[in-house]
């Protein structure tokens, strides 16, 4: 099972770009990298998923270097409402595979 390591917490300010890095040294060939956001008292919400290089959607970008041993979630111009816990998960789409959720990164955005 691919294990991930991410910072426990991060602070930033409104309007800044925030980058959260996740380490996954034993990522397997078939593994994808997925990020979720969770607000208090809510279920997680999918942000982005990627396999290699760069993926961008309307809310974030995901940068994956060639060796795929780490990935960086980039949130452009954050606002107070981006304060949440962010989870990095690594796993394949094999039907018997179970994603392992770590404790995530608690991101606090200050005014």
């Amino acid at each position, binding site marked *: 099972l691919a294990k991930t390591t991410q910072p426990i917490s991060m602070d930033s300010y409104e309007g800044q770009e925030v980058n959260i890095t996740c380490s996954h040294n034993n990522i397997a060939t078939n593994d994808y990298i997925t990020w979720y956001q969770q607000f208090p008292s809510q279920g*997680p919400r*999918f942000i982005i998923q990627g396999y290699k290089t760069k993926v961008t959607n309307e809310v974030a970008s995901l940068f994956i270097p060639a060796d795929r041993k780490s990935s960086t979630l980039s949130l452009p111009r954050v606002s107070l409402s981006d304060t949440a816990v962010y989870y990095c998960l690594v796993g394949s789409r094999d039907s018997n*595979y179970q994603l392992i959720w770590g404790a995530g990164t608690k991101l606090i955005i200050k005014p």
Partner: protein
Amino acid sequence: IAGITQAPTSQILAAGRRMTLRCTQDMRHNAMYWYRQDLGLGLRLIHYSNTAGTTGKGEVPDGYSVSRANTDDFPLTLASAVPSQTSVYFCASSVETNTEAFFGQGTRLTVV
């Protein structure tokens, strides 16, 4: 509104009682999951189902059972609740295994 619905929203349950948490999705997703989340921790997978008629054990299956009689419903049953099962339970679904998952609003269960 399409999505995934859990019931009840919260419940206080006496230890030893049987309880079923309900989960229904209307997105025709193949895969469904049950997670528990304890305070300050990440989610832990209890059981999953890759398609109707099949189920599998997750990381923490003991004390829980599930069934998947059809595509839409994935109930989670606690046969005899214990205080260590006090947690927030999230149901989720995805088109296929480990693709974008959609989560319910959660069920806060307290076993006393």
